[in-house]
């Protein structure tokens, strides 16, 4: 019996992880919040730990218009030029 495989072919695009930061000291943090209740509070709390422990500074706060959809490409591109790393997470 010959069966077709029901799964998808892989996407034709290359994905690569960003290079790991050599150090967190003094880096600029971005916050990407998803607009849900408590999201900003939770992310600011996390960012404050980086400020206290590693002397980081918050350099950008970005928002998603739709919590359950991918961040618009323009938002991520803007963040890339403004911060060293980005903190995001779910708020609800």
């Amino acid at each position, binding site marked *: *019996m*010959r*069966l*077709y*495989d*029901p*799964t*998808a*072919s*892989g*996407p*034709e*695009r290359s994905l690569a992880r960003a290079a790991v930061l050599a150090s967190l000291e003094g880096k600029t943090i971005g916050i990407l919040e998803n607009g849900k*209740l408590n999201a900003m509070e939770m992310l600011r709390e996390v960012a404050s730990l980086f400020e206290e422990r590693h002397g980081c500074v918050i350099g950008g706060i970005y928002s998603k218009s*739709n*919590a*359950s*959809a*991918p961040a618009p490409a323009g938002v991520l591109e803007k963040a890339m030029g403004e911060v060293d790393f980005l903190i995001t997470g779910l708020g*609800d």
Partner: protein
Amino acid sequence: MPFDSRRIHDVPGDLLAAIDYCYEQGWTDGLPVIPPVVERVEATLMYEGRPPEAVIATHPATGLRLTVHAAAVNAVMAGCLPEYFPVLVAAFEAMDQPEFNFHGSTASTGGSAPLLIVSGKYAEDIGMNADVNLFGPGNRANATIGRATRLILRNVFQMIPGISDKSTQGNPGKYSFCIAERARGNPWPLLCEAQGYPPGVSSVTVFAGGGFCNVENHGGNTPEQILGSVADAMANYGCITLGQSVVVLSPEHMWIVGGAGWSREDAQAFLFARAKRSVEDMRSVGKYRDSEYGKQHGASAHAAVEEGFVHRGLMPEDILIAMGGGDAGGHSCFIPSWSRGRGSIMRHKPIGVCIDCD
């Protein structure tokens, strides 16, 4: 991966062993599937004019693509007959529109299942059920088209329960959630007509639905009484949000509403005006948010929005109303949207035809 590399699995000829093989591959929703033998898939593809490698939908986060061929494989597995295939294709064309956000609605803790509402003659042509036991069980077309939708989300888009589908409690509709709009005895224009499709063109509407809420009323005999019951269900504390709604009126209820001369638009306006909670009530259960109130009452607020109240949805048109079910019984239903705001907006597409295509 190029289409030429469609993968074939050679398995022993025993049917039960092939069903077990599908389980072992992780291709099922927990129920047995029809092994997707080459011949059945090829027969299904005959119902689509585009080539097998044509892409119907793309996952916005992973880039995984649903081809006509992959849709046909999953349709066979779900138990679809070939003539059901155009409905499935149209459903994913509708779901592929960004406003529907099939990634978010499938991945979310909210437990959404895509509800498919098929309207027009094509539903009758393929033997769909719009009558007694509307939401099932019992009808092959309804059951298997809805099931194929879910199998595609699982197998093609890898929305795997517990991994990329994080629904807190799930939803029985995640096995299958597909109905036909009842035309027989319907006093209103069918949805496909209201949606503006030319005569003879059927449509499928997709809605990221939450759970099913039965609305029982055997005593009411005016539109206000019937729709008042529906509005109360729509405004219950667990459901009220700025999201859209689907209401399926049973024939008994529809004949009271339509028999009194109420149009679909009249009913939508009534439901929108009545499905509301006071700000004080919303605060009492911890669900009031200034931002949501502002969105509903801002500069673009609908004229029917009442000061001091939170309505369900943003406007009467956010409430889809259709007729369905058996002749007997004062049982309608309300299905809330998964989205608590505008995270998923219902979409529709014509079945088996291309209108204003490139």
